[in-house]
């Protein structure tokens, strides 16, 4: 810390000693408008190569004093092509018309914790997603769902189709084995918690009772709370070379979300309403039984009379349709106000969402209110605040794996078409003789709700402490809180089949309350220095402090009184609590050097310490360095070539051990009413430290024909060392695992983008963009014996962690000579001595592509986004469960057996335990992620008072895949770790169609 003070005092010295030298100066003034002649407010105008700048006022007017006898003025406005115009004392008046840019090249993106840089000067491939692409095409169900296919370098996968989301995001591959690979999320400077907190369904599902010890409750993650319509832009820092400035939390990358800010001028009111419908994305159909099939079934042969009776009475039911056939009504209302004066600007956003799911009684409701205020306190002092209140409620149904046969999906899989599960005229549901649950009754009666009340608030105070023509010193203080209360409510009334008549626990009520408070505070000094030579320096140093406090209390009651759900109306109760407390401190220094926009060099260092580490006061350092060379700024280049940038960047970042890794503790227990303590199964590591990621990234950006065509290429190598493993220990020690830094892995990949403004005339504007990205991962060091993890058992498919192999390699059992591609080399792998498995695939896709098209003709716009994921395998245990119950939709087809003898169901089952191949499937897909068509009514349609826009949009309207289930995007175990792509009868995904009406005043 002493180092800071030295630096800080130096800066103070500079401030006090520098004396502004007075030179000749002149003034230029004028007005900035868009192509329609509308004034543009808050356009930044800077004198190139100096610290001098101003912004346009409410009328688009500006005035600026310029030293010397000539200068270049830079006009800069987000979403518009920036301009550089030479001026001299003769200029006096300069009116500027700014053109909307086709590609967001001039957007500013983060370059330090307290500074931004123009994208064209950036040395990293930071993804930038503007508002228009987040919520402007279609209605994203949640903010995380708005990210699919929108930028390169990410694998984004929904866990299921349950309302309220639940999504995993991996940026440039998996970066951790037992820890989180999920990115850090920063909203307007506030650290946003993105936890997934289970609702305690395990008491009924018993999912943790068999092959897997995880709960599989399928909770949503809390990024879902943020309203996508509030977002101005999203920046994605994909690896350590950019994310180093976030230190120990940034190994999974950083998603920086900036919300909309007010702009001075008359108050603009925006209102929009959409109405839509959701339905199941890919119904599989059910097995069509015949007498022969029933008689030949070992499970159903005895039920032939029931089958005949149902068939003769026309009572064969398609239960898939009855369970998943709800056509969900989707309602979204949006109101926003935006305006202000020169000194104060505000943005007020209100959203209300009410969406039904495809299963009865499921759905998602959300209300969000946001107020963002900017205020210029004094000429040198500016305050920006953001405040967001969110209330959301998600009814998520009862799905995923269980060991009690009670979830809707599992009991549905056990039920043939002749079962009679519909309620009688009094609403009484019969027992399902084929499963412990009548899933129609479960859908009607069981509650699984997550309700959130959340406040995200942040403020930034920027003080311009010292300003001359060539030097500026700013002090920035930024603080934020993320405070939410999550209430989970799971009610299994004692009238459902698996709770009544002594089946089960006579009613269960599980109510959890989680209170989370994250606070962060940071202070920075930023010193900018512009030398006459054209060289400029920007020095920043800062300190940060974050604290995290999560408290989860889960009350479970069973043996309920009548229909009561209050916890104390019960015969038995249980309670559990989990607390997470963490304090982090860090410092940050960075130096940026810019030589005439030609050469840009950045050097930086972050130091972090945390109570999560074994040694709480040990500082971990994360350096970074980046260099960009804008060749087009040097010398004479052909007219065609408007941008040529070479860039290379290196950085390090970290990833904390899971909370609690440093403790070896006891859990509490009760025997006959007396409390006791039992040693936990995790052997803690009192010296645990963070994982360390080192990333080298290089690439180039090429702009042709005035940047109407842009090509970018990036290659990266990301090495993650000191990977934390919950390494298995011999269980005879009494422990099952211990936390050790014991592995390393490498991700290598490529990202290529091509965008073009294909047609640009007065009436027609057509932009297209193609992205291609690929990632290869490999475990490069493993200090513990190779192991399999992430699934239920090797014969049901698991992930192999072994040196030299991808950490997402999927293995299973199979014949020793198994050779899928027929290259003569068997696909076997030795896990440990004597344990040989077959490699059936890798969860990592071969590559992904996205294709974005934005077509505008006069007042019509038409936009769509295609997303292609090629390769990547899933472990499809849904099919297994259907097969075991002899109800699979394709049970009777004969497309699999190479001998053409066995039906698909019989064939797959004949290989169960012998060959896992039938249940490990290619999960490639081509999805029409979003499509939208809008028409803006002529200006004078409503007397010029309002502009009215109507439109229609769709999400996932088309999704093509061969994968034998509802959706290849699925994860039974949620977002974390190595278990993505395991499917066990999830809530099926849906597609949606919305109609829109919006009015702008």
């Amino acid at each position, binding site marked *: 810390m002493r180092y800071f003070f030295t630096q800080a005092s130096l800066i103070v010295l500079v401030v006090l000693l520098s004396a502004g030298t007075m030179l000749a100066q002149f003034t230029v003034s004028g007005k900035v408008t868009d192509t329609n002649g509308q004034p543009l407010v808050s356009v930044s105008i800077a004198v190139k190569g100096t610290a001098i700048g101003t912004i346009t006022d409410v009328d688009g007017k500006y005035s600026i004093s310029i030293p010397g006898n000539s200068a270049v003025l830079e006009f800069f406005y987000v979403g518009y092509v920036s301009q550089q115009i030479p001026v001299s004392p003769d200029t006096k008046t300069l009116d500027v018309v700014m053109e909307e840019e086709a590609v967001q090249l001039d957007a500013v993106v983060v370059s330090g914790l307290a500074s931004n840089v123009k994208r064209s000067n950036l040395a990293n491939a930071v993804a930038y997603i503007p508002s228009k692409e987040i919520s402007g095409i279609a209605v994203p169900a949640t903010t995380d769902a708005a990210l699919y296919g929108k930028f390169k370098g990410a694998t984004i996968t929904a866990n299921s189709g349950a309302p309220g989301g639940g999504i995993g995001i991996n940026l440039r591959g998996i970066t951790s084995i037992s820890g989180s690979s999920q990115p850090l999320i920063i909203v307007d400077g506030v650290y946003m918690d993105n936890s997934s907190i289970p609702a305690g369904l395990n008491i009924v599902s018993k999912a943790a009772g068999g092959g897997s010890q995880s709960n599989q409750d399928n909770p949503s993650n809390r990024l879902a709370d943020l309203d996508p319509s509030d977002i101005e832009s999203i920046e994605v820092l994909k690896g350590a070379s950019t994310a180093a400035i976030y230190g120990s939390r940034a190994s999974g990358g950083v998603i920086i979300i900036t919300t909309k800010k007010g702009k001075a001028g008359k108050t603009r009111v925006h209102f929009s309403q959409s109405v839509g419908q959701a339905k199941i994305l890919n119904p599989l159909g059910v097995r069509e039984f015949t007498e022969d099939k029933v008689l030949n079934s070992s499970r159903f042969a005895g039920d032939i009379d029931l089958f005949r009776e149902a068939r003769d009475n026309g009572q064969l039911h398609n239960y898939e349709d009855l369970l998943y056939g709800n056509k969900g009504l989707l309602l979204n209302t949006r109101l926003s106000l935006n305006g202000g004066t020169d000194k104060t600007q505000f943005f007020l956003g209100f959203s209300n969402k009410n969406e039904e799911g495809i299963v009865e009684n499921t759905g998602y409701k959300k209300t969000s209110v946001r107020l963002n205020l900017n205020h210029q306190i004094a000429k040198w002092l500016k305050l920006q605040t953001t405040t967001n209140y969110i209330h959301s409620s998600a009814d998520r149904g009862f799905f995923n794996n269980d060991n009690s046969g009670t979830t809707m999906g599992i009991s549905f899989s056990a039920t043939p078409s002749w079962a009679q599960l519909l309620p009688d005229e009094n609403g009484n549901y019969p027992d399902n003789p084929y499963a412990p649950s009548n899933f129609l009754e479960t859908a009607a009666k069981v509650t699984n709700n997550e309700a959130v009340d959340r406040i995200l608030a942040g403020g930034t105070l920027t003080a311009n402490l010292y300003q001359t023509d060539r030097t500026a010193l700013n002090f920035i203080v930024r603080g934020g809180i993320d405070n939410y209360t999550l209430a989970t409510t799971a009610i299994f009334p004692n009238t459902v089949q698996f709770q009544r008549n002594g089946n089960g626990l006579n009613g269960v009520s599980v109510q959890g309350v989680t209170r989370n408070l994250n606070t962060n505070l940071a202070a920075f000094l930023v010193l900018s220095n512009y030398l006459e030579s054209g060289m400029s320096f920007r020095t920043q140093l800062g300190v940060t402090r974050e604290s995290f406090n999560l408290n989860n209390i889960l009350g479970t009651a069973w043996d309920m009184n009548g229909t009561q759900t209050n916890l104390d109306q019960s015969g038995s109760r249980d309670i559990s609590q989990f607390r997470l407390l963490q304090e982090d401190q860090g410092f940050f220094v960075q130096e940026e050097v810019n030589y005439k926009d030609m050469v840009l060099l950045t050097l930086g260092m972050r130091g972090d310490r945390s109570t999560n580490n074994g040694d709480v006061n040990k500082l971990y350092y994360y350096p970074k360095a980046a260099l960009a060379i804008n060749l087009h700024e040097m010398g004479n280049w052909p007219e065609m070539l408007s941008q040529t940038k070479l860039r290379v960047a290196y950085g390090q970042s970290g990833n904390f051990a899971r909370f609690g890794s440093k403790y070896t503790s006891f859990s509490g227990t009760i025997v006959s009413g007396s409390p006791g303590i039992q040693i936990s199964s995790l052997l803690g590591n009192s010296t645990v430290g963070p994982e360390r990621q080192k990333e080298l990234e290089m690439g180039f950006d090429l702009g042709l024909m005035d940047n109407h065509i842009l090509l970018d290429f990036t290659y990266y190598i990301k090495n993650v060392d000191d990977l934390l493993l919950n390494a298995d220990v*011999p*269980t005879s020690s009494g422990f099952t695992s211990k936390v050790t830094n014991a592995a390393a892995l490498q991700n290598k990949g490529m990202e290529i983008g091509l965008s073009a403004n294909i047609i640009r005339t007065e009436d027609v504007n057509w932009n297209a963009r193609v992205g291609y990205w690929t990632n290869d991962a490999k475990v490069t060091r493993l200090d513990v014996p190779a192991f399999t993890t992430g699934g239920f058992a090797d014969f049901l498919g698991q992930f192999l962690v072994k040196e030299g192999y991808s950490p997402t390699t999927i293995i299973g059992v199979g014949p020793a000579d198994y050779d899928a591609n027929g290259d003569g080399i068997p696909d076997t792998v030795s896990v440990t001595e004597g344990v040989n498995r077959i490699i059936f695939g890798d969860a990592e896709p071969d590559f992904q592509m996205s294709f974005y098209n934005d077509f505008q003709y006069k007042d019509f716009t038409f936009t769509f986004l295609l997303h292609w994921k090629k390769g990547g395998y899933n472990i499809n245990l849904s099919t297994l469960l259907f097969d075991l119950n002899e109800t699979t939709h394709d049970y009777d087809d004969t497309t699999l057996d190479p001998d053409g003898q066995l039906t698909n169901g019989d064939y797959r089952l004949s290989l169960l335990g012998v060959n896992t191949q039938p249940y490990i499937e290619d999960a490639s897909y081509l999805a029409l992620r979003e499509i939208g068509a809008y028409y803006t009514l002529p200006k004078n349609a409503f007397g010029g008072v309002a502009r009215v826009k109507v439109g229609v949009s769709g999400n996932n309207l088309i999704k093509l895949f061969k994968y034998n289930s509802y959706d290849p995007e699925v994860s039974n175990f949620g977002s974390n770790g190595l278990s993505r792509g395991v499917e066990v009868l999830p809530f099926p995904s849906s597609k949606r169609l919305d109609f829109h009406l919006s009015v702008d005043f």
Partner: protein
Amino acid sequence: MINSFKLLFLGCCLAIFATTACQLEDIPDPNGPSLDPILQDASIGELQNLVTGTESLLRQEIGFYYDVTSIVGRDYWYFTGSDPRYTGELLGKDNAVLDNAGFYGTRPYAGRYRTIKNANILIEAVTNTSAALSDADRKGYLGFAKTMQAYELHLALNLQGQNGIRVDVSDPDNLGPFLSYDDALAAIKALLDEAADDLDAAGSSFVFSLSEGFAGFDTPATFRQFNRALAARIAMYQGNKAEVNKDLGESFMDMAGDFYTGPYRPFSTAGGEATNPVYRVPDQPEGIIAHPSFVAAVQANMNDDRNNKIALRPSGTLALDDLAGDYDVVVYNSLDAPIHYIRNEELILLSAEAQIGVDNNAAVDAINVIRTGHGLDPYAGDMTDEALIDEVLNQRQLSLFAEGHRWVDMRRYGRLDQLPIDRPNDDVWSEFPRPVSEVGN
């Protein structure tokens, strides 16, 4: 230009820098007590918590133990749609073999050693504590801890059979060697004997309390009777019949007593308690179904009151995976039914077994206690050793049904090939593979 406001402001900024630069305080685990302070100097209250925690762990993962030993030993099948391994790998269906990472082998094994660890912590804490405890008090804790460790080691050994097990596991970083089956039995027996000596020196009462499961066995003297009962079981497995008789003599065996006398794991549906994991609601689409071989054996005489261990399914046959059965297992009739560690009925059967070849009349006397106690006529078969062994094994199958004995008994006598298989390619396993975590680690 600098004005005084800005200077003041700058001062504040530096103050913020300064306050964020202070040291971080370590945060103790907010969710539970940590190991080290307890090892170093536990209070009497914490020692009691460890005793109760050890009792609690004796219940943990124990359902898997009873299920897998009963399935492999053809006492019952577990039909469930949730996991195919219960009717696949455990029964050796077709080419399926036991997986050394399969939960059915790893979880009951790990559960036993977790109890042993907790008891080792108790032993170390008792040794180190500065609490006001007499030597006799300390011996009491040790006698309890070692007896329960021996019990758990034996269950682990039952699963691992000829693979053997580790016995010395007190240091997680330096685990002792795997002992062969015979050596492990000897070590377990020695541990029980050591515990018995501790109990002899433990005075007249424990300073800690045990749960209701040890009612009647909660003083050093009575707990020692339980210890000797376990010792008799081990001695029988070792084939040392003289030792069995000696240990039974010091145990709680009572030829005239209730068959169900003996300490047990208590279960309860009350909050925070564990429920009986072997209990399944009868007559459901999923459940534990009595193996036809047991049904035939017990229904050989409908007067045998052990017929109450199974119940005909009102909804009819339950079939899965080419297996079908008509009777639910109802050995445990509710979620709070206790599961015994060892009970009088087994001791009587041990006594019978130990007399075979020594005093066959005494063996028959003991057999008849069981037979008549269950409504059967006294034994009238051959008096040869072989015939009596058959009879004892038969009575053990009926009396100790679903209590984890059938498979181990048949293995002890080399008769696993006599266990019935249900599908042509099924297998009867002789032991579970050594868990994957123990291989190469």
